[in-house]
């Protein structure tokens, strides 16, 4: 329905000019409002996801802590959750294995990842980069279950047991090495981003003073990009902590304080997999222990991620 406005001087009335189709405007306005509301709701779903994670982890973990002591959980070193008698929930046993796997992984991934990043950005030609970067991305995209299989069936028998005949079939070293290879591309790509952000002028100034490529890389570039590099390390460590399938397959399920990397151990994530692989009945304290361990895992990885973001913000050098 069109509504005519007052006649415009100079133009005949009912000529079609100056007439506004209010219904179209009204419809468009409704569409605008509806679209905006729909989009907002979708964005809000992400908040609900976070709330959901926190709520479910907390509520089920609280059920766990209604029968088990928090202090014993956090400080105990005996984890015999699946025993019928003498059930003990000292999570440090699991945490020690997680920490050991992460340490081994970082020992592998930090030098390899950083040096690869330096090579890719400072030494490699455009053509070499265009070949190597997709390969590294492929490495990052391989499902972790494949790494776990490789660790269990190749790394352990062919490599570890050849060098250390006393190593067991399931051992922390094998899982740690595999996790290290898995997180190396993450360090490489994030460190490379940080290195590329260093302005060319800094490099050229150092070259002009007669520095060798190695000196430029270690004394100019890495210090300049250090905040991003360290952040990449922290994020990689967070990934290693949360890694599940590699440790489930290769590290074993012996839930004791991890002291020997050549023996088996059970990480926090490995415990979750072991429990759900069996018959887990809702309402038992084994079921609730899943969420207690999950809550600890969530807090640890969230803490590392937040720390890495804070670190970048605090120490980043802006040069431009």
């Amino acid at each position: 329905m069109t509504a005519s406005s007052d006649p415009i001087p100079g133009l005949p009335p009912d000529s079609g000019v100056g007439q506004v189709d209010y219904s179209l405007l009204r419809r468009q306005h409704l569409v605008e409002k509806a679209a905006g509301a729909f989009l907002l709701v979708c964005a809000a779903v992400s908040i609900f996801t976070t709330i959901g994670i926190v709520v479910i982890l907390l509520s089920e973990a609280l059920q766990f802590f209604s029968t088990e002591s928090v202090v014993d959980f956090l400080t105990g070193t005996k984890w015999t959750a699946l025993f019928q008698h003498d059930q003990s929930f000292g999570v440090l046993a699991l945490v020690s294995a997680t920490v050991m796997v992460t340490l081994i992984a970082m020992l592998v991934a930090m030098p390899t990842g950083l040096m690869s990043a330096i090579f890719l950005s400072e030494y490699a030609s455009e053509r070499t980069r265009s070949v190597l970067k997709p390969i590294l991305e492929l490495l990052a995209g391989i499902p972790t279950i494949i790494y776990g299989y490789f660790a269990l069936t190749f790394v352990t028998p062919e490599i570890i047991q050849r060098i250390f005949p006393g190593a067991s079939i399931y051992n922390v070293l094998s899982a740690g090495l595999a996790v290290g290879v898995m997180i190396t591309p993450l360090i490489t790509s994030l460190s490379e981003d940080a290195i590329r952000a260093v302005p060319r002028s800094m490099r050229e100034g150092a070259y002009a003073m007669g520095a060798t490529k190695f000196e430029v890389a270690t004394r100019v570039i890495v210090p300049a990009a250090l905040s991003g590099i360290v952040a990449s390390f922290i994020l990689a460590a967070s990934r290693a902590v949360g890694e599940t399938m590699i440790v489930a397959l290769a590290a074993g399920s012996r839930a004791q304080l991890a002291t020997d990397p050549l023996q088996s151990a059970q990480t926090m994530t490995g415990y979750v997999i072991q429990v759900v692989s069996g018959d887990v009945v809702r309402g038992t304290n084994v079921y609730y222990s899943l969420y207690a361990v999950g809550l600890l895992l969530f807090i640890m990885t969230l803490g590392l991620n937040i720390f890495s973001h804070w670190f970048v913000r605090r120490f980043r050098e802006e040069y431009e």
Partner: protein
Amino acid sequence: MSALQRDAAPTVEQLSANKQLRRRQGLARIWSGIFFLATAFAVAALAMLAWYIISRGWGYLSWNLLTNPASRRPERSGLYIAIYGTLWIISLTILISFPMGVAAAIYLEEYAPRNRWTRMLQINISNLAGVPSVVYGLLGLGIFVEWLSMGRIVLAGALTMALLSLPVIIISTSEALKAVPWSLRESAYGVGATRWQVTASHVLPAAVPAILTGAILAVSRASGETAPLLVAGAAGFVTRKPDSFDDSYTTIPIQLYNWMSRPQKEFLDLAAAGIIVLMGLLILLNSVAIVLRQYYGRKARW
């Protein structure tokens, strides 16, 4: 420089006669070799992995692997049911997470005011992307399987995977939208278009290739995940293929985990063949992403 200056200038050899300089240059040469070796190590690890898997699983690669259901006998065991489950999960996950993820990213990039709340929302999404997948599995188990009493059905698994993929899709779509130049939006606003008209008719078509690529990569990553679905209830031994969203199911990675957990060598060889199938599926999905990007990239010229 003049001929006189050139002849008088020290040659590289004369400069390098300096002992300290020679040491530094030698060090630089050694280190460039070490940096190269570090990169080569990663590539070599990938090559070793690929060679080992292919050589181990080659014997079990056959059409039967794709058409047989799982069985107690390795020579008769196949991925038929698992493939069905994986396809179900992928389809439902895309259906749930893609529209919501793209919509959330559109809100964040085109509609949201630049204030503290929006910033918090973005930080929240970034944190969610870093949560371990096994925690998403616990979320799925606690809320969908138990609290909403769905049981261990396809829908519960797909919802879990959708929540897992959502942050990644949001982030990649945001990047795609950010890459659309402002001039495109301003030209549309300039002729009186409303915000939704600008977004739907101008920004989105320009960003479609990157959005699709990001979404397919997110889903292909999710289809290789084992832990969340193990926790949220996929079974290890399913006898019938899932025909509806409320059937029990298994997926390819979970079936592989089942085989890998057995001591018999034959099942481990079978698992290697299954890995080849899984990688084939992922390569197929990634190729679809690349092809779509080429196709839509040609149409969206700006």
